[in-house]
């Protein structure tokens, strides 16, 4: 498994979300919380940006135009260059089928909207810690989430 040569001071999060308000909100909070943030508005763009930037983690909304989140996830997980990058699925549909579909597509975690920014940050930090301690530089502003439903 190849790791990118570039060593970042802060982990890079790719936020894939077609709803601009939400995308920018998550981006702003992630930056506020000490992450570098890249943004993508659809599935195709998500694959291109992931392949180009090789982010440390991808926050993937499932309902996307042009190519949906499941398909994009499947492609990234089938690509050896991007397979190692954890993907957190983000969906508004809290139905059981969606979680299963996301897991089958290769998502590493699943977060149901609405998700408060600090809950999202906490989940990202948890995944990155599990990956190998790249989040130690992240400023700890997260608070204990109360409305987040963990699906494991």
């Amino acid at each position, binding site marked *: 498994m190849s790791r990118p040569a570039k060593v970042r001071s802060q982990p890079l999060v790719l936020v894939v979300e077609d709803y601009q*308000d*939400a995308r920018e909100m*998550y981006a702003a909070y992630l930056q*506020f919380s000490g992450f570098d943030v890249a943004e993508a508005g659809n599935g195709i763009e998500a694959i291109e940006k992931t392949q180009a930037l090789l982010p440390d983690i991808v926050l993937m909304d499932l309902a996307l135009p042009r190519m949906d989140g499941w398909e994009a996830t499947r492609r990234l997980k089938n690509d050896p260059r991007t397979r190692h990058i954890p993907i957190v699925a983000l969906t*508004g549909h809290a139905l*059981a089928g969606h979680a299963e579909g996301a897991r089958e597509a290769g998502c590493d975690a699943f977060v149901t*909207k*609405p998700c408060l920014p600090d809950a999202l940050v906490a989940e990202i930090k948890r995944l990155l810690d599990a990956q190998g301690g790249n989040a130690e530089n992240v400023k700890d502003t997260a608070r204990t989430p109360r409305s987040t439903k963990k699906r494991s």
Partner: protein
Amino acid sequence: MARVAAPVAPIHGVDSDAKLAFVEFLLTSIDVQESARRAVDWLVAHATVREAAVLVSEGISNEMLLVAEHGISSGAIMDFALNRDDASHPLIQALGGPSAIYVDGLAAHHRVPLEAQAFHVIPLRAEASEPGHGLLLVSGVGSELDAETAWLGRTLGKQVSRLLGRQLLAETRFGQERMLLYSIINAVTDPILLTDTEGKLIIANSHAEKLFAAPEEASEGWRRAAALNNMLFSAALSTSAVGMAEMARRELLLVDPLEGSDLLFELLSSRAKDERQGTYVVSILRNVTDLARAKEEIEESYRTLRIAQAEVRDERHRLDLIIDSVADPILVTDQEGDIVLMNTPAERLFNAPGIDDEMALRRVRANGANLTSFVSNVLTRSGEQRYRGEIQLGDPLTGRPLPVEAVAGTILSEQGELMWVVTILHDLTEAIEKARLYEQLKQASVELERKVQEATAELAEQNELLRRQHIALEQASALKSQFLANMSHEFRTPLNAILGYTHMLLNNVTGQVTDPQRKSLSRIDSNARHLLALINDILDITRIEAGRMPLNATTFGLGELFDEVQSELEPIIKRSNLAVSTKVRGAVPPVRSDRQKVKQIVLNLLSNALKFTPAGSVTMTASYDARLRQVAIAVTDTGVGIPEDDQVKVFEDFRQLDSSPARGYGGTGLGLSICRRLAQILGGTIELESAPGAGSTFTLRLPAKARRR
């Protein structure tokens, strides 16, 4: 029968018997030729003649004919003819001569039938003085005439003279008359008797002889019968002796001598006076045996006829009674179509006795015309024994139409010709009324059936409509659920942004906020959260109602579940300052059910208890009913309590007892409603036990092992 007294010749010579027999024959004979032949035969038998011939001249003819011969050739017989006018002929001369002559040789032109040249010529006559009626020629007896031949000549001469001569002719005519009379008497089939006044028989015809004279060879019975009949006859005559002058008529019973049966005769007797012989009685018997029998038979027949007539009269009377007693009109018509007999009901229609009303009479005539046309139909249909038809009649009195069914039968004579037509009429008014009612009933039935069918069809249509509506409703419901699911998603996306940015502001991401700003942002945050909770609850209800709440059964312990719920609500418990405890009463087995849904219910019940209990305690208790195989989870608080009237309402949608909008207690008002629905899909129930001020206990009961749905 009386006999004619015959002239008897003196008998000469040796053969007196033969001569007597011959003479007797001659007496009975009335035929010249027959007598002549017999004479020739006798001569041949008793004299030594070679040839013999008898010549006779008959009547006024001058021709002398050969009537008998012996020893003469047939050719000579045929050729011979002798005329009495030929006076030169020696034979004719001999005819008038005084005695028999002997001829020996004749001139060739004088023909004789004999071949011999010498023969005797004997004239046949009664007296020597009279001329002969015929000649007897004899040859072969010699020149001297022998005695036998001479006797025969005389005897035959007398016979011929008797039969042909004038005197004899007269005698024969009288005899013939007698014979004729006798024959007439015999021809009469009735017995005729001539008796003296004592009944002694003088003459009887053959029919009478049969009754009164038994022949010698007759049987004993016959003779006795004849004797008896004679006696009876004499008695009958003597009893009617008085008034004998006129024809007496009486009955006489005699015996049939041959059959022995009785014979009844009518006896007619009359007296006949004869100057010479005195008084005789002529009796005629007429056989009336058959007549009497016939009379008897006729009388018997007549008697039988009388009886039969009486019977027929009785029968007719009975028949009249019977047909009069029949309510249906009966008529008998002859082959002309005229009514010969009808019963009383028929008279009412076709006769209307004692009614003068013009209208009634017209109706009677109309009825008669209708009947006549019907009967004429029957008459034209020869060969059919029965004929059935309908006739329109009218009641003569009221004019009411009277439809009748007419059944006609024909009565044929023994020769097969139609004699009468018997017609019976049957009133059809009732039958027609019944038929009409039946038809109405049938129509009503048909109508009813049609209505039922229509109703059924309508019902089927409605059912189909309902089915379609049901399908449409299901589709609509599914669409609604889908719509709500989609909507809740679409709600969440902006809500996500609202909550997120509020959160960022409160966390000073965009710079420090002032206290009043923070207070406002907190209001936005709490209302947004409430909206989110509502959306989530609506989504749950939608899922449950759409049947899209999948059950995921696992086996779990209730103690652990309690711990988990308690820890999840730990911040609220802390804030509430209530004593929260859990209890497991008795041995509660692990439960097999959908853990997440059970937890959702318990969470809800516990948070409700915390909300509505200002002070005191909240206890969660688990127990098990082994008999019902049921676990119970009770959440008991010491809170405000719920009045009994409201205990049902709390499970309804959007219900809180305090319906003020602020709802100091928070919550969506859908919590218990969702809990009840969840409990139902898990096969359980939620019960409430409460009173105002005395706290509440909500108990969830679940089967220890959920059945598969």
